[in-house]
């Protein structure tokens, strides 16, 4: 299937404040949120990006929606490079690519009624006002807020988290986009409403044929929603493959640790416990070579010298590790 989103060698650095010594020596320290990320998202696919806090997954999502500009590399949507978009081209892109936020309590303007919040994309896309009500009602039906009249005149603080996330989803769907990025869509919600939102998202994706990228730290969620998973560590993709294969037979030492950390109800499932040491290092000064080497129990000399490339491995995986984890 043709790729809808293509990322090639995407780099994103955030400059940090310099000390006097660094200014004198001409150094420009930066947080390296993304350090050469390349992958494709096929049209109609559901792809997950997983990793710890600070690994760059949220930055990646923001870049794919042109909410930030990459420091290097390129991102294309439907064959058009995002870097050069402005004016009508950008407006067209905004119609097609939408975001679902982590925190629904902050994602809606507190001074906007629910109706107005969901109408905002239509206003910005310059859609005739006569069509608004119809489209908004349709979006509300899609997110199972069928009694929409009850919500239209309310303000965000009058709704519950689950309802708010449905409204946020309705806002994202009101323009009938092709591409949806969901950044930790349920992590701020009560456990009791998570399942409902997740089921809803899967249902909507299948019904509308959406291409979706889910950003999460939760492998259980990813397993439910996505066919393919990318594992990130300190700004790089360390493993890429079918979700089931990644969960069942993780190849990269980091993925193994990640999988081992997920509580599973099935005690018989085989797990390769691989303890990792310490915390995620400072992303302004990552270790040389493989970023994971100082925490990896299997690291050897070559890991410090050379960054492993993402290579094909058995089972349709791509793994960035010098070890042959067959």
């Amino acid at each position, binding site marked *: 299937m043709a790729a809808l989103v293509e990322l090639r060698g995407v780099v994103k650095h955030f400059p940090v404040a310099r000390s006097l010594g660094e200014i004198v020596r001409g150094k420009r320290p930066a947080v390296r949120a993304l350090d050469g990320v390349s992958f494709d998202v096929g049209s109609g696919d559901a792809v997950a990006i997983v990793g710890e806090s600070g690994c760059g997954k949220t930055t990646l999502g923001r870049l794919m929606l042109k909410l930030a500009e990459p420091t290097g590399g390129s991102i294309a949507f439907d064959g058009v490079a995002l870097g050069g978009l402005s004016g009508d081209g950008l407006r067209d892109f905004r119609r097609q690519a939408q*975001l679902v*936020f982590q925190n629904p309590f902050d994602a809606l303007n507190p001074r906007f009624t629910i109706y107005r919040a969901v109408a905002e994309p239509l206003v910005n896309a310059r859609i005739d006002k006569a069509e608004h009500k119809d489209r908004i009602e349709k979006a509300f039906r899609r997110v199972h807020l069928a009694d929409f009249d009850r919500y239209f005149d309310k303000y965000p603080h009058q709704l519950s988290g689950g309802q708010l996330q449905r409204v946020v989803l309705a806002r994202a769907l009101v323009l009938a986009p092709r591409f949806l990025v969901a950044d930790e869509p349920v992590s701020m919600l009560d456990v009791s409403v998570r399942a409902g939102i997740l089921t809803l998202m899967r249902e909507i994706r299948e019904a509308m044929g959406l291409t979706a990228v889910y950003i999460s730290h939760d492998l259980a969620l990813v397993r439910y929603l996505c066919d393919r998973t990318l594992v990130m560590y300190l700004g790089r993709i360390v493993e890429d493959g079918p979700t089931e294969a990644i969960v069942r037979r993780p190849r990269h030492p980091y993925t193994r640790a990640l999988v081992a950390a997920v509580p599973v109800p099935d005690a018989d499932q085989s797990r390769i416990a691989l303890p990792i040491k310490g915390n995620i290092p400072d992303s302004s000064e990552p270790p040389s070579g493989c970023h994971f080497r100082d925490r990896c129990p299997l690291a050897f000399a070559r890991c410090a010298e050379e960054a492993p490339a993402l290579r094909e491995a058995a089972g349709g995986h791509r793994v960035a590790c010098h070890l042959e984890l067959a």
Partner: protein
Amino acid sequence: MAGVAETATPTVLQRIASMPLRDPFAFVGLSIYVIFALIALLADVLAPMPPLEILFTSTGKLAANLPPSLDYPFGTTNLGRDIYAQLIHGTRSALAVGLSAAIVVSSVGTVVGLVAGYFGGRIDSLLMRIADMALSLPFLPFVIVLTGFLGASTSNIVLAVALLLWPNSARVIRSQVLTVRERTYVEAARVTGASSWRILFVHVAPNILPLSFVYAAIAIGWAIITEASVSFLGFGDSESVSWGYMLQDAFSSQALSRGQYAWFVPPGICIILIVVAGFFISRGYEEVFMPRLRGR
């Protein structure tokens, strides 16, 4: 864009309108403003005598330094002018100076703060350095020099106050914009395709509007004090009667040493009342803006 004004602003306006009912201080402050506003509007009815008219007694003598009486509730000045009439008419110039300065200060401060805070970078640096320069000017000397150059008129005093006070509101509003623009709903507006100006004026501005009101109320007090100070020092508008002018007149004609309290105490009390009223109102709006302050 018509729908914008219909649905979002009422919440701000409603909160602003209902505030005095919830906060007793704000209620007192607003009452004082209403009373002064009525006095200013009805000045010609309340005091038909022109405030600078020189009065004579029935025997043809100058009616100078008369003690308070039924005809002249606060007595007369040493030039035979009715102090009561001056006090009533002084309300007009006080409110004119205060309100026009408040409008200029809060609108300039709001726009500068919004633009500097939202766009950041060089625009921000430039605007904030200009603000720093304005803040570094000594207050009264600047007003005196400016009125000296441009002429001692009420509008020049308003101009001077506006030039000196906008940076305070601009800075605070800028800092508030810096926090509001990081809110998720601002990013959400960008994803849905809102332009920068739309985000700034539709999504950010309504959330900082109460702060503009706080600074407007503070500016009223400052402008009136400044006008009074400048007039007291003798640099005021000689054509119009203000409370500061009355104090200066009383001071220079030794009303204080003669114990003519009815001449200089009432304008002093009026200045205090209107400045305190502005403070009370701004305090109330501060609580609307920062609900966490409520009840402390």
